[in-house]
């Protein structure tokens, strides 16, 4: 039996496995068996870790390098040798570099492997040493919440350590669903513990989520995309009933009212002006919000009073609500509510925003050194298809940073452990068309373990080994003070290699093999990275030899005195200012005001009607909102082909009986979900556990177009839009309208 980290795919957790081996074959996978304490709780794996044998021993594992023979995307390949494959990749890298320059090379976003030695960072290091590549910033997960949190607080470290949640008396889980998306191993468990200690928990979500069932005392089925309206109405009640913490607001924030506007902006609209409707003539009353959110006004008023008067209280934001048209607004609005209620810098409180953990921002995520990128240009991760089509036209208006304008279109994609090329990017049919054109992207190389929809579009596919078959290292996912070792416990399939080893081979062919490896193999890099942890976060971290000898798997630093974000700032805002321009909480942001786009990027947080909405013209044709929630069958698109998980969590569309009856649809029937961008055919589940007017299709299922282009795999991204949010340039994949109808095979 060997203790090891659960292979990491950006699931939202980092757990410990006990892997039982017999004759080099895994016979059983069990979970953490260390003592289970609140200070250092067990890292119990979810079904995806439990079902990992089915992935490890899947008959569809890629076993040798492949070269495309048909049209791109057609899925026709031939077997080639590693030498041929690596030579081809190296020569294409050199050719494209010579013809266009380094800025035509791109390693796209993707999180299929996250254990340092496997994953896209290995290719990033490769291309950085090769003279650089077009960079990207931001992610598909936290596109709006990261920059929006920064506009308010100047930092994303806004969260208390989770042991402190036990001090809370009232928790608003706003679009937050830790039972399904994890958000740190044990986050759901900590809410349970808080509740056992007397906290009331209210969940706002269009779905009656597993978290709402298991953790909440009340569920409020809010209409998707209207959260900022309800938050504005909460503020209205707090202001008009004088329930807000006026002292805290006066001393710790700017822009709440006319008495505290930043110099030079005295005449601008304050937050209070907006909430009371002094300029736009629309007071943001609960009655006003009711018509938008679909939540009764009296419920809104009651929640405002509960949140403002039960102390301390947490408003915890999930991330689904910010992968939307104006995802920035809801994040800023939630931070303002945390300030209004004075829940910042106190035990049991919560500043909202991204909530990385105090005092140091928590886990590192990436320790493997990718080095400096000689190419200074960087794009928002979501805009890579734009950079393929019209990179040379892109400048700051498209989120380009580092240079005034891009000097290239993307011509070569080096893809590692990512299904974002097709499956996870918005508007699959559009992306497929773009990638099919060999005049646009001239070469695509993909490291993969399976023939994913993305791998189908590769020119060369290089078979990567699994995380059990090489060395790796993890730390917590957002939370937790742990380092988790992933020793190599299995021999790789004969012709598969770690992402690191593949990149090292390419580097060798390009003439800088030694520079790439610095003479280290995978295990030696793990040793090197353990040193990094020892020198930075965890001085007491044992050596690799000790970790192995004692079969520890994980090293944890117990949290006995949980840190609270902004504690110093709360005590003395003059001595400990925030890293914002004003040094205070920026309810009004002069920087956002300076962008000069008040309708889309207001200086104070506002509700803005989305571009696809039940209130727009588009609703006549496509009356239902569709959201793509996380699902325990998969980590994004990873595990789609795992039969155990499939059986436990079948793919389908969830629809309320009100909407199903209108369409004559019954549970189990095949339905067609469609809009102007595409259509998919999948079974439906009629369920009470979603609000009328909304359907949910778990995101991540693999795209499987039939001969008519209808998706049979259940991939919601055939319906989603490539349009991005105005300030963060983030993905807005949850902002879509669709129609559903009964489907009969012709």
């Amino acid at each position, binding site marked *: 039996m060997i203790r090891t980290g659960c292979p990491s795919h950006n699931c939202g957790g980092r757990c410990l496995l006990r892997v039982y081996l017999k004759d080099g074959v895994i016979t059983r996978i069990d979970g953490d068996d260390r003592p289970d304490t609140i200070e250092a709780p067990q890292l119990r794996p979810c079904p995806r870790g439990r079902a990992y044998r089915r992935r490890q021993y899947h008959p569809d594992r890629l076993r040798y390098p492949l070269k495309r023979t048909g049209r791109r995307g057609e899925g026709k390949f031939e077997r080639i040798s590693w030498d041929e494959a690596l030579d081809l990749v190296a020569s294409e890298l050199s050719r494209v570099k010579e013809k266009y320059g380094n800025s035509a090379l791109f390693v796209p976003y993707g999180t299929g492997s996250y254990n340092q030695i496997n994953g896209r960072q290995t290719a990033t290091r490769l291309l950085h040493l090769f003279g650089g590549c077009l960079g990207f910033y931001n992610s598909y997960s936290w596109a709006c919440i990261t920059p929006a949190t920064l506009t308010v607080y100047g930092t994303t470290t806004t969260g208390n350590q989770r042991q402190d949640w036990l001090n809370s008396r009232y928790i608003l889980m706003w679009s937050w669903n830790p039972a399904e998306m994890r958000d740190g191993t044990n986050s759901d468990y900590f809410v349970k513990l808080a509740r056992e200690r007397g906290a009331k928990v209210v969940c706002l979500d269009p779905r009656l989520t597993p978290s709402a069932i*298991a953790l909440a005392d009340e569920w409020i089925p809010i209409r998707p995309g209207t959260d900022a309206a309800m938050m504005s109405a909460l503020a209205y009640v707090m202001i008009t009933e004088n329930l807000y913490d006026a002292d805290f607001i006066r001393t710790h924030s700017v822009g709440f009212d006319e008495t505290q506007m930043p110099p030079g902006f005295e005449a601008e609209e304050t937050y209070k002006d907006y909430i009371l409707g002094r300029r736009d003539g629309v007071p943001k009353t609960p009655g006003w919000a009711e018509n938008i959110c679909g939540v009764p006004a009296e419920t809104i008023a009651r929640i405002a009073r509960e949140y403002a008067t039960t102390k301390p209280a947490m408003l915890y934001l999930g991330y689904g609500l910010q992968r939307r048209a104006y995802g920035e607004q809801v994040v800023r609005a939630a931070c303002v509510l945390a300030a209004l209620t004075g829940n910042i810098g106190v035990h049991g409180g919560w500043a909202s925003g991204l909530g990385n953990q105090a005092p140091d921002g928590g886990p590192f995520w990436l320790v493997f050194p990718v080095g400096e990128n000689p190419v200074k240009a960087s794009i928002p991760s979501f805009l890579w298809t734009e950079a393929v089509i019209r990179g040379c036209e892109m400048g700051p208006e498209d989120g380009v940073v580092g240079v005034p304008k891009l000097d290239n279109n993307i011509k070569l994609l080096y893809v590692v452990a990512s299904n974002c090329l097709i499956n996870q990017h918005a508007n699959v049919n559009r992306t497929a068309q773009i990638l099919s054109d060999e005049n646009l992207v001239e070469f695509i190389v993909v490291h993969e373990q399976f023939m994913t929809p993305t791998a189908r579009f590769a020119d060369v596919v290089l078979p990567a080994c699994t995380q059990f078959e090489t060395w790796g290292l993890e730390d917590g996912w957002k939370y937790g003070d742990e380092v988790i070792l992933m020793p190599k416990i299995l021999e790789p399939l004969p012709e598969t290699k770690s992402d690191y080893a593949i990149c090292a081979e390419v580097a060798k062919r390009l003439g800088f093999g030694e520079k790439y490896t610095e003479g280290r193999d995978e295990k030696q890099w793990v040793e090197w990275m353990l040193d990094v942890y020892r020198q930075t976060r965890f001085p007491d971290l044992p050596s690799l030899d000790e970790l192995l000898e004692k079969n520890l798997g994980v090293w944890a630093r117990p949290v006995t005195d949980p840190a609270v974000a902004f504690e110093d700032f709360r005590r003395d805002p003059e001595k400990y200012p925030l890293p914002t321009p004003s040094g205070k909480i920026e309810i009004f942001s002069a920087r956002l005001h300076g962008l000069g786009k008040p309708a889309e990027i207001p200086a104070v947080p506002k509700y803005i009607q989305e571009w696809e909405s039940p209130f727009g013209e588009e609703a006549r044709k496509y009356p239902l909102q569709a959201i793509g929630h996380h699902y325990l069958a998969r980590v994004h698109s990873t595990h789609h082909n795992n039969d155990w998980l499939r059986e436990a969590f079948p793919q389908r569309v969830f629809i309320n009986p009100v909407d199903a009856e209108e369409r004559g649809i019954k549970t189990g029937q095949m339905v067609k979900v469609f809009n102007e961008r595409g259509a998919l055919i999948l079974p439906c589940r009629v369920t009470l556990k979603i609000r009328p007017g909304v359907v949910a299709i778990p995101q991540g299922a693999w795209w499987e177009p039939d001969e008519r282009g209808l998706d049979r795999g259940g991939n919601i991204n055939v319906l989603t839009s490539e349009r991005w949010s105005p300030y963060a340039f983030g993905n807005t994949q949850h902002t879509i309208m669709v129609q559903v109808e009964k489907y009969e095979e012709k």
Partner: protein
Amino acid sequence: MKRNKQEAREAGNEKKSQSGQVQYAFFFDSSACSACKSCVLACRDKNNWPAGVRWRRVYELSGGQWLRVGNNWVPDLIAYNLSLGCNHCEEPVCLKGCPSGAISKRPDGIVLIDRKKCLGCRYCEWSCPYGAPQYDVAGGRMTKCDMCYDLVDKGERPACVDACPMRALDFGPLDKLIEKYGQVRAIFPLPDEAMTRPSLIIKLHRTAAKAGAGDVTVSNREEV
């Protein structure tokens, strides 16, 4: 009850538990179950059953209605989950009805099916009100949750119990669990405990009390 235990002993049981004459039982906290199915997968990984053989199952119960209030829809719903293996009943009806004497009860209360004696007639599947016996089509035999007696004999707990990320499952002697968690031994749609005296203690979900009266159904039938 006494008679059953005697029968079980006479049925020639395996190893005696070190703890002697106890009735082992499960505890399930419905108020904290998110239906994540970690227990289901932990069971499956340990026991290696093919698709369709489900020693532990998670039932999603839901009912109630959406009310039209003004322009809005307001939920009046019941929704909770139930994780269920075999309850290793104090009065196991499966054992009583087995024509081949393949089912026995150990001194520690664990009810087992002897694959060698089982005829595959599926009577136990009919008689068990909990859906615990699961037919193995390939083997032509009945199977069911054995409370991981191999682990229990080593002083460990069943795989499902330690798998729960929400710590909503527990295991131990029935009397100890009653002491710790109370007397509730049924939740809708489980039958009255008097029927088989299940070795199962339950903490009810806040909406479960209303469940018996209304239109609550298992909403994930294809998964259980």
